[in-house]
């Protein structure tokens, strides 16, 4: 399992019903491409986040498939509609089978 993986999210704590809000996410991750070699000339095996999803109250906002060409510490910015109060769930899927999750609650102002 990759070490020191830490998700961070910028999402508003509240919104008006039906409002579109901007979400930003970062996750600290090496995103080892599988194309680099170590000092002995051996290929360092690929180990990346291969999928990222964001759902709100069980409904999908965005579902992203990632290749090794996504930079270290993958960053995403996107927009979401907030129909009512609830939980925004962020999920990152690692090649090694690890799943990292983060949840942010949004209130209706």
């Amino acid at each position, binding site marked *: 399992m990759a070490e020191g993986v830490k998700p961070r999210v910028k999402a508003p704590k509240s919104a008006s019903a039906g409002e579109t809000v901007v979400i930003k996410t970062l996750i600290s991750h090496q995103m080892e491409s599988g194309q680099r070699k170590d000092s002995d000339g051996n290929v360092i095996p690929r180990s990346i986040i291969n999928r990222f999803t964001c759902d709100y109250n069980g409904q999908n906002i965005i579902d*992203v498939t990632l290749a090794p060409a996504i930079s270290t510490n993958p960053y995403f910015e*996107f927009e979401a509609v907030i129909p009512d109060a609830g939980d925004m769930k962020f999920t990152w899927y690692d090649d090694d089978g690890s799943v990292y999750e983060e949840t942010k609650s949004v209130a209706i102002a």
Partner: protein
Amino acid sequence: GAGVAVTLMLPARGALAAAEDRIAEFTGGAATGEGGITLTTPEIAENGNTVPIEVDAPGAVSIMVLASGNPTPDVCTFNFGPLAGAQRASTRIRLAGTQDVVAVAKMADGSFVQAQNTVKVTIGGCGG
């Protein structure tokens, strides 16, 4: 000035062909139109290892991004769900050298539109 190790590469024919193949897989061989999709990239990458890109295709179901000059062209595919506030997303990508970044959007009606920008990856140095 530039006292550096240099690994700037121009896209190999093979990489461009691979990108064409990926587009054909994504579209099922359908032709791609222009317009209706905006791809925003820096003209010159500040760092080839982390190049910010943004795609915006109102009404799209999904948007595939390719780096046509990388050893393998795949970058990412954004699939937009019912609660997407816009069919717009940003991320940061790795570019192995100066090349065209390509974005292809699948629209709700099953049609496809495409945009591409040249991003220059440079050694840097010097100035006014």
